[in-house]
């Protein structure tokens, strides 16, 4: 499937759209720059479609199906020109790859577009690993630190790309601690964190206790939602850094509240 969308590489470099995700777009724009740098290092022309907004997952997961369909159409339209769509989040990538086609099960023309988009969409780590990413020189401040890699539930069970992330971190020479209970949710869950705050907090605190136990001084993940959930609950001054920043060597360390 993927090669069908690859133009002749000798003439023009293939284009990759960065689907930045609403969280990174609004709260951690530096993740976007790190992604651009990483994807460009593979020889792709990177573009950031300006009409992208949000994948529609908040509405979809709340059962607002009609609204999710309308939002999905907006994204499909914004992303149709590109050979690849790279998403620095298992959650949003999973929405496009697994759930867009379900939303259009009864709507053949859109279903075809949704399936095509799904086939061209990759979670960032999977994309980098499959395309043979090689690290540059990581900046000194992170290589000193030991990181806990939180494999988000979405990367684990939606995009099945958590091992790509692990491989990339090792390739980049990042020192990783052995985090226990990696398959357990951090308690974010989108609107869940707001609807059931005490429960969400307890789940996050348990994840942070596991981080503490493995003696890591920072947490990285391919999903910013998880990182923000954990950062807002952290009491011990851990660093929180998206995997894109860590791989690109642009992690500014902790974001002071």
């Amino acid at each position: 499937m993927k090669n069908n969308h690859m133009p002749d590489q000798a003439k023009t470099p293939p284009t990759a759209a960065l689907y930045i995700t609403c969280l990174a777009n609004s709260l951690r724009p530096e993740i976007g720059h790190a992604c651009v740098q990483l994807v460009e290092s593979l020889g792709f022309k990177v573009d950031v479609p300006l009409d992208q907004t949000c994948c529609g997952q908040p509405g979809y997961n709340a059962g607002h199906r009609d609204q999710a369909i309308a939002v999905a159409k907006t994204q499909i339209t914004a992303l149709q020109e590109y050979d690849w769509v790279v998403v620095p989040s298992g959650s949003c990538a999973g929405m496009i790859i697994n759930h867009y086609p379900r939303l259009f099960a009864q709507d053949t023309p859109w279903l075809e577009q949704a399936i095509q988009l799904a086939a061209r969409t990759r979670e960032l780590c999977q994309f980098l690993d499959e395309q043979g990413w090689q690290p540059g020189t990581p900046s000194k401040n992170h290589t000193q630190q030991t990181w806990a890699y939180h494999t988000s539930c979405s990367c684990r069970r939606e995009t099945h790309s958590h091992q790509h992330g692990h491989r990339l971190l090792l390739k980049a020479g990042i020192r990783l601690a052995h985090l226990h209970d990696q398959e357990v949710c951090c308690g974010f869950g989108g609107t869940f964190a707001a609807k059931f705050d005490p429960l969400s907090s307890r789940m996050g605190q348990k994840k942070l206790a596991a981080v503490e136990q493995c003696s890591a001084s920072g947490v990285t993940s391919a999903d910013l939602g998880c990182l923000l959930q954990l950062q807002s609950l952290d009491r011990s001054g851990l660093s929180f850094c998206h995997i894109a920043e860590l791989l690109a060597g642009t992690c500014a360390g902790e974001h002071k509240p």
Partner: protein
Amino acid sequence: MNNNGANGFAAQSRQALDDPALQSALGHAQSGFVKKRAQAIAMVDDFERLKANAQAAKRQALANLAPLLEQFEQNLVRNGGEVHWAQSPQELNATVMAIARNANARRIIKGKSMIGEECDLNAALESAGFDVVESDLGEYIIQLAKEPPSHIIAPAIHKTRQQVAELFRQYHALGERGLDAISDLVGEARTVLREAFLTADIGITGANVLVAENGSIALVTNEGNGDLSATLPRVHIVVTSIEKVVASMEDASLILEVLARSATGQHMSAYTSFYSGPRQAQDPDGPDQFHVILLDNGRSEMLGSPFEPMLNCIKCGACLNHCPVYTNVGGHAYGWVYPGPMGSVLTPLLQGLETALPLPNASTFCGRCEEVCPMGIPLPDLLRQLRAQQYEQTREPRRWRWGLGLYSWLSRHPRAFAWSLRLSRAVLRWVPQRAWPKQRTPIRPSGDTTFLEQWRNGPKNGAQNGPQ
């Protein structure tokens, strides 16, 4: 714990989080289940194939449910048993009582049955003047404590050892007997229950699988209490539900293969028995009467609906043990007899959507339940469909309905969306700590503007140019 039913989930879960004894009980027991299941599955060559076989057997059975149930009935009647059909819990309870009265029975010993819990059978029997004793250790403990089960296979998992000892001190004439070790507690229960087994007129058990080809029921336990309940009293009543039927012994064994491994991490439960009728002339023991009551209670309506996959459930409890919500709040927070992911789907389906509004929402959609479900039930998707029903029936809290509606509208209008992100960045930058939950520090946006604005104002603005 106060119990306001499933609609009280939010308050009940907060209470559970603040209950140190409950937290300690949950912590110990849960990690054991997870570890044992993982070990049991690692020892099987191809667990995925076992699962696929069990699911295929179940799928076929559900596709032929009516004929298989008829075949089950015919064969069971041929064996000398009786089949009773119950549309509702009330009907099931009334049938049990009619059988008991006909047999001039007063004392009842019970094996563990989730159908019994679903029908609140004990309360009905007790209020009609019958003596009922639960014989599963966990069920016995919660019967003393007058509590519902908090787990579908480990009903007293929320109790610490000290709490159990306390209950026994309160209700048993202990005399010289001590309760220091776990073996003391088990011995104590055994002493009391042995008497109950020997004096009971009726034994009630559940069933794990019904076999159409020979009219028998399969019953698995680890304490042997099910077998004593089934064979010692003169009447054996099986309370079960229609979706448990499969075509053959072969199919039943496929389901039992995944059941014990998923539930307790055993290859087989300690006791796996098949009962097919009353005592025959050549039998050394067994009951004079054998009754099977088949409960529907909304299940036939699930057939052919988007929720049909829920009928695959074999009540192994794996989804509870692996659920980050269940493992933090325990079963009572869910407000009815079925907790965890399977309960969050079943409770609204069996009791009515409006009686359990928080349950489908109380999930992060982490997906672990679906991953460990041996019967391939897409639990997160079913929960999402229940959320959709709440949306369609306008049963969501208004602020969520409007808030998410607004966000969806913004997401379809990129310019308005960009403007709203600018606004939310400004708000988040200044919103004071006290506006946040006290255990959280506020999330502050970084950078000067959104990423899309930075990109629009010059691609790579702020980034390290080009390949590394």
